[in-house]
């Protein structure tokens, strides 16, 4: 200690001496952008090492008092910080370099450390605030779609709900494959709670307001993210929030206003020829079988040619039976998102401050659905002394929804289920008054459904989430080369959901009421020491050591009144039956120690080493400490060999090897005995259906990555290629086992999966002119090949079930690609022809088959952007190629006869064949005019399935169209409803205009930007009919199943950003 004191005394003495010799002068000048010579108002000019500073005015001009020998530090968002020595000159004009000029790019890396991109031995890609805030997506995850190589985003349904993101394929067979989200150095939760409750609750990261984001950096795998340890195997998304420094001068007020309108992108193509009923017959009496087929909710009824038939609204009177082609479309409404935000920020010599408020109102495309979100943030930096800085960030978010759309095909809350069984003659406008005077529902059908408006207005799910996250960071520069950081952060939310099911709802005559409450919290405390030293003339060393303590808590409290005592009162007290209650609490804690070192040689050769050890509470005592290292290196060949030229602006090679360990969820070691609802006065306890494992080991992911970066022709052609290979072993899987073992699931610790891939990013600037016109093309491509190597050590298990819907399952199967769609197929003969049964229907193979894989072969995107003066125009095309999807909408809609695809063959005009029934079987007639023998009725809807009998003869058995379609498209055979999920989507078009500075200044403003933004405009290619191949109803791994999705949306909006 004594030594330190003496040293600092000496240093200050030296400084004093230096100052006493320096001469105070007034310097000033203009700050401009090197790229376009535009002035930069608001640029921050500070004298390095002091708290003295100023800001450039509206014309980019500044003045400041300085001493000769001082160094001016000039910084501004989007530009690299410049250092200029103060000599004798009084005028110092400064031009700043854009940060996106590739050579000197600085990116945010693990633990929030900014590093020169060229020093990194792995791929990192960054998005700036403009990319996120303008073409606004209410779910932050969607903003990354198509822009980052190797990132796969699966859209949610409708315009509310969840989105799934996966980077470089699935590295965990069973566990969470979502990347870790880090906001200003502190992890924030992205769980999707309540999967399987029939509602698509948004994943938690969607709480973050895009306006508050300064940049997003994507660390794609363990190589980049090893320092984050356990949760980095899936990659990390680093979010840096805006601070006072990001304010562009003036009084520091920014107003952002955004209005977006959402309409249906894809709606099934319905038929409008035949109405409700069966066997061509229908007559309404009570809607549940009292009339002629009026309990049937399919459209195999009479032709809708205006014939007179009693219908649900006609009180027994026969009225014209006519189609209502838009009866489904008309039920949907235009959704909208209104977003208004205000931010106040600024910087003084002592503090940077920024406060923002944002209000987002979203209204869904289903009636009576929506979310309102209010966000308050405060971000402050206090320069307490020149060496001690305190930064704080706090974000409070209140998300409230009165009703969220129902998903997953449940009759009580999903209207998409009803619409795929809808009578095509039903006039949806007549259903709007959904309640009878006695409180029961008024509907077209009463055997299964409640009125769709009843579902939307009575059977609602409300959500209220109060969330706080924030952090405080204290940095102290102990010595010139040594600094210490202490950071404490937390993310805590309470999420309350209220599920109402009204009295008289079909299937739930007494209704029900459920409250489902969650409290989720994570706290991190982190301490780091960072030393930077020059070693001799050639080397630089940058060392970091630190520790972290993380605590996670989770609590759920679920209570249900399964049958209400009286109607319309939704409280838990209003219950006919005993309440159903469960509660769950979990806690986990991880201690970590980590370090990293970077050694660089002449700023063109770099070696980075990291190491981390975790101690996790979720693993057993002997195995709960695990260590993992990483090493990577980069060499800027063009600098090292001095071959940099106009033709070759950059050539860099990089590579690395990394390992990360991963723990598991709490309480996975010892099996327990859960309670069941008591039987009268007898409490019930059962053996858990999960067999756990006492000696769990941590999962280990090992990843190797090499890459090449090159710039040609004055960096107008930029190439970044990455190859990677990652292997995850000791995977902890809660695998399905045969129930005959006495358990349904067993925890295994042996799974292994390999992911290999290539990512290419190609940037091109075909045109750039002196007048300021610029055209950029950015292309990204990624291909990931996954292979499940092993599931269990004993080799008993060949398949792990990731998800299922009826007969079709999504599997991780040994030796195969991840995500197999495994289901029932048609029986085929040796020549691969479909075999038909005696009755002419296709036979079904009793053994299931792999029908496809949900994982794509490759993904890519092309973004073209043009800028001229204040105008910018960009459009983004996004694609996934390969991969399959099983579509519940398609098979159900054909089975029920509502889709246009069920029309061919339904009558003579539609290509049906003539036949009669001879008492035993259908017999084909030569033509439609031939009478049947014995005066038997002649039918004209005959179809013959294209198959062969078991003994190899061409099938001749004729079926009615209804029997034909029902035998080919149904829940017992999945093969006919698996489609190629490839698509090319016009993802985004953005037209922006920044008002010229001269006009803006006349209005006493800092900047005015307007933008017209359209997202998900349409398809350039799509193979699956009637649905959007990009669909997910949760963020889990059981993807590739479409179970009556809510249509996805196209959005068009307007964004206005004004700074004062």
């Amino acid at each position, binding site marked *: 200690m004594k030594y330190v004191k003496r040293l600092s005394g000496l240093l200050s003495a030296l400084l004093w001496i230096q100052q006493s010799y320096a001469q105070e002068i007034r310097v000033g000048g203009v700050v401009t952008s090197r790229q376009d010579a535009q002035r930069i108002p608001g640029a921050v000019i500070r004298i390095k090492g002091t708290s003295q500073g100023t800001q450039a005015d509206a014309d980019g001009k500044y003045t400041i008092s300085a001493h000769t020998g001082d160094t001016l530090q000039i910084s501004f968002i989007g530009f690299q910080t410049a250092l200029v020595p103060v000599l004798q000159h009084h005028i110092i004009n400064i031009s700043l370099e854009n940060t996106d000029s590739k050579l000197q790019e600085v990116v945010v890396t693990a633990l929030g450390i900014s590093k020169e991109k060229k020093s990194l031995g792995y791929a990192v890609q960054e998005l700036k605030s403009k990319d996120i805030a303008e073409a606004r997506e209410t779910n932050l995850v969607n903003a990354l779609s198509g822009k980052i190589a190797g990132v796969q985003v699966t859209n949610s349904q409708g315009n509310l709900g969840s989105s799934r993101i996966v980077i470089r394929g699935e590295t965990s067979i069973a566990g969470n494959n979502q990347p870790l989200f880090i906001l200003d150095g502190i992890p924030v939760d992205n769980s999707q709670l309540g999967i399987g409750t029939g509602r698509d609750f948004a994943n938690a990261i969607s709480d973050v307001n895009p306006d508050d984001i300064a940049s997003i950096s994507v660390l794609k795998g363990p190589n980049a993210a090893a320092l984050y340890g356990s949760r980095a195997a899936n990659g990390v998304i680093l979010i840096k929030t805006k601070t006072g420094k990001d304010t562009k001068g003036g009084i520091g007020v920014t107003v952002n206003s955004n209005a977006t309108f959402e309409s249906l992108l894809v709606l099934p193509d319905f038929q409008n020829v035949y109405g409700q009923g069966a066997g061509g017959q229908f007559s309404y009496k009570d809607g549940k079988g009292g009339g002629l*087929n009026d309990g049937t909710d399919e459209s195999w009824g009479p032709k809708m040619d205006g014939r007179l038939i009693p219908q649900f609204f006609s009180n027994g009177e026969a009225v014209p039976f006519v189609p209502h082609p838009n009866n489904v479309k008309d039920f949907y409404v235009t959704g909208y998102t209104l977003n208004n935000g205000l931010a106040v920020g600024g910087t003084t010599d002592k503090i940077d401050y920024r406060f923002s408020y944002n209000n987002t109102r979203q209204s869904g495309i289903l009636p009576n659905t929506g979310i309102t979100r209010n966000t308050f943030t405060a971000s402050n930096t206090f320069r307490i002394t020149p060496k001690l800085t305190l930064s704080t960030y706090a974000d409070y978010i209140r998300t409230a929804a009165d009703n969220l759309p129902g998903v997953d095909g449940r009759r009580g809350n999903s209207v998409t289920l009803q619409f795929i069984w809808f009578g095509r003659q039903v006039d949806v406008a007549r259903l709007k008054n959904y309640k009878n005077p006695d409180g029961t529902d008024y509907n077209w059908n009463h055997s299964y459904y409640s009125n769709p408006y009843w579902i939307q207005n009575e059977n609602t799910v409300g959500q209220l989430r109060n969330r706080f996250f924030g952090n405080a960071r204290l940095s102290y520069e102990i010595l010139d080369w040594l600094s210490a950081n202490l950071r404490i952060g937390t993310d805590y939310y309470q999420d309350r959901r209220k599920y109402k099911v009204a009295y008289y709802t079909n299937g739930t005559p007494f209704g029900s009421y459920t409250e489902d409450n969650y409290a989720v919290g994570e706290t991190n405390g982190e301490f780091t*020491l960072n030393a930077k030293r020059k070693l001799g003339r050639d080397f630089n060393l940058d060392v970091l050591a630190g520790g972290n303590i993380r605590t996670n808590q989770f609590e759920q409290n679920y209570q249900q009144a399964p049958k209400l005592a009286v109607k319309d009162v939704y409280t838990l007290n209003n219950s006919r039956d005993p309440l159903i209650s469960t509660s769950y609490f979990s806690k986990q804690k991880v201690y970590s120690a980590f370090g990293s070192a970077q050694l660089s040689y002449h700023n063109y050769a770099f070696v980075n080493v990291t190491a981390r050890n975790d101690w996790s509470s*979720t693993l057993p005592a002997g195995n709960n400490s695990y260590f993992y290292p990483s090493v990577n290196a980069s060499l800027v060949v063009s600098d090292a060999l001095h071959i940099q030229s106009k033709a070759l602006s950059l050539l860099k090679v990089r590579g690395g090897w990394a390992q990360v360990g991963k723990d598991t969820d709490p309480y996975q070691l010892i099996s327990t*005995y859960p309670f069941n609802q008591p039987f009268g006065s*007898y409490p019930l306890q059962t053996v858990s*259906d999960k067999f756990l494992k006492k000696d769990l080991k941590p999962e280990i992911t090992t990843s190797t990555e090499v890459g090449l970066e090159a710039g040609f022709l004055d960096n107008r052609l930029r190439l970044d290629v990455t190859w990677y290979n990652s292997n995850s072993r000791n995977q902890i899987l809660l695998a399905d*086992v045969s*129930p*005959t073992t006495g358990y349904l699931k067993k925890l295994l610790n042996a799974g292994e999966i390999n992911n290999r891939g290539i990512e290419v990013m190609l940037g091109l600037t075909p045109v750039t002119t002196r007048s300021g016109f610029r055209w950029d093309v950015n292309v990204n491509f990624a291909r990931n090949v996954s292979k499940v190597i092993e599931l269990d050590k004993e080799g008993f298990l060949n398949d792990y079930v990731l998800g299922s819907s009826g007969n079709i399952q999504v*599997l991780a199967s040994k030796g195969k690609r991840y995500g197999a769609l495994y289901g029932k197929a048609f029986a085929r003969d040796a020549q691969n022809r479909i075999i038909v049964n005696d009755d002419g229907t296709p036979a079904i193979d009793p053994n299931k088959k792999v029908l496809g894989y949900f994982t794509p072969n490759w993904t890519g995107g092309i973004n073209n952007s043009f800028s001229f003066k204040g105008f910018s125009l960009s459009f983004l095309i996004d694609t996934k190629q390969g991969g399959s999807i099983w579509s519940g909408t398609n098979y159900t809609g054909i089975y029920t006869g509502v889709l246009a695809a069920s029309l061919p063959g339904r009558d003579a005009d539609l290509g049906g064949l003539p036949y009669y029934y001879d008492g035993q079987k259908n017999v084909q007639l030569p033509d439609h005019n031939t009478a049947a023998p014995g005066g038997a009725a002649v039918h004209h809807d005959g179809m013959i399935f294209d198959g062969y009998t078991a003994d190899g003869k061409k099938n001749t058995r004729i079926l009615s169209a209804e029997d034909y379609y029902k035998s080919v498209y149904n829940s017992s055979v999945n093969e006919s409803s698996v489609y190629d999920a490839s698509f090319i989507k016009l993802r985004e078009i953005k037209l922006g205009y920044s008002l010229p500075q001269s006009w803006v200044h006349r209005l006493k403003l800092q900047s005015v930007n307007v933008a017209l933004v359209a997202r998900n405009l349409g398809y350039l290619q799509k193979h699956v009919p009637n649905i959007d191949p990009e669909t997910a109803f949760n963020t889990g791994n059981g993807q590739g199943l479409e179970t009556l999705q809510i249509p996805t949306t196209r959005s068009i909006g307007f964004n206005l950003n004004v700074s004062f």
Partner: protein
Amino acid sequence: MKKLLIPFFIIWTICFSACQKELEKINRNPNEPNTVQPDYLLSNGIKSNVDTYWGQDATMDGALLYVQYWSKIQYTDADRYIPASTSIQTVWSNFYAQGIQDFTTLAQLGDSLHNPNYKAIAIIMRSWIFQQLTDLYGDIPYRQAASIEQYLTPVYDSQRVVYNGLLAELKNANTLFTNNADVQGDVLLRGDPLRWKQFANALRLRIALRIADRDFAAAKAVFDDVAASGNILLQKDSLVKLNYLASPNQNPVGRNRETRNDYRISKSIVDKLKALGDPRLSIYATVPKDTNVIIGVTNGLPNDSAARLGFSKTSDAGAVFTATTAPAILFSYAEQQFILAEAAQRGLISGNAATLYNQAITASFAQYGISAAEAATYVTKPGVAYDGGNYKKYIGEQKWLALFGQGLEAFAEWRRLDYPQLKPALTGALNGKMPQRFTYPSSEQALNGANYKAAVARQGSDLLTTRVWFDVN
């Protein structure tokens, strides 16, 4: 610098030794106990497995339709021999993971707590479940079942092995009971060792008769042994049954009727009861609102013609079966007497088959509160009066009438006796054949594939129409 770091690392090290303890403590599950009480486990095992036994997946959408006790007027696929794959899976999963495993654990607890009565009861209940499973599916994992630490993929045993194993287990269980071990939580037989022994012996006779066509000697040995050990059998007119309670612990049939109206009584049994002038008709069936006459519905109607029947023109099963608190019957005195009648007829025991047959019918009448006098008249009617030369028909038909509601047992006995002679469902999906078993759930293909294939190779294709071992043509 070094001086700064040293205290830091000392604190770090101290923390970590303390932290190890802390970490272990954090991972103690606060949500569920690590131990189980035998009485809670017993109550749960009985309740949840009787639910499966009496519930929709195995019985209402399966056996009750196959033996034409019930039929369907909505969603008729199940009645057309197109079972839902989820139903098949649920029966299998519930019986094994909730039934076999819970009772295996209870048997172990009986040992560790030195309470042999829990162990004996656990073995009897587990045997009852295994019997349901093998009756339904044929060959099943038995010897390697519910031993996950040794067998992750249990081998399927042939049905012969299963039945013989169960006979041995039941015999052994009866030797375990003591009178000084207290059993709590027994919602079936109130912990009474004598009643459990009676139930176990009745089950032994049921199984013995089931295998009699295949292995007469083994069957005979069981009957002899039960007789030799004092014929401890169900007392006259007693039932082994679970009494259901008010919602949410209501009878599964009652629960179904609260929200659904899909099932009707089958035309087959209504016609038979009518033909015989059987007084049980008005108990087994309701009178529909619109007709004043009991009308059964033909099995296997297509959805549209079933729907055309409406809701108020045909008869549902009687309130005795559909009430909220209706009991589920596991074994009746009537069934026992039918078993003894057939045993006497076939020389498995000595005794008068006709007398026992009449006792069985009288017991069935008594079960539904019909007097012995009415029974005495009934048993003399042509078509009822016993004819030993055609015992399969007489016992088959009367046992079928007596077992109404007990779908699983009736389904097994109908297959074994080939009576009553039923017509396949009108639009059945089995090319004019009737189901003879359940198919294995598809999860077995994926999770226990090799053993599944071996079982199918031995037993025959995994189809509804494949006959199980006990079912001799």
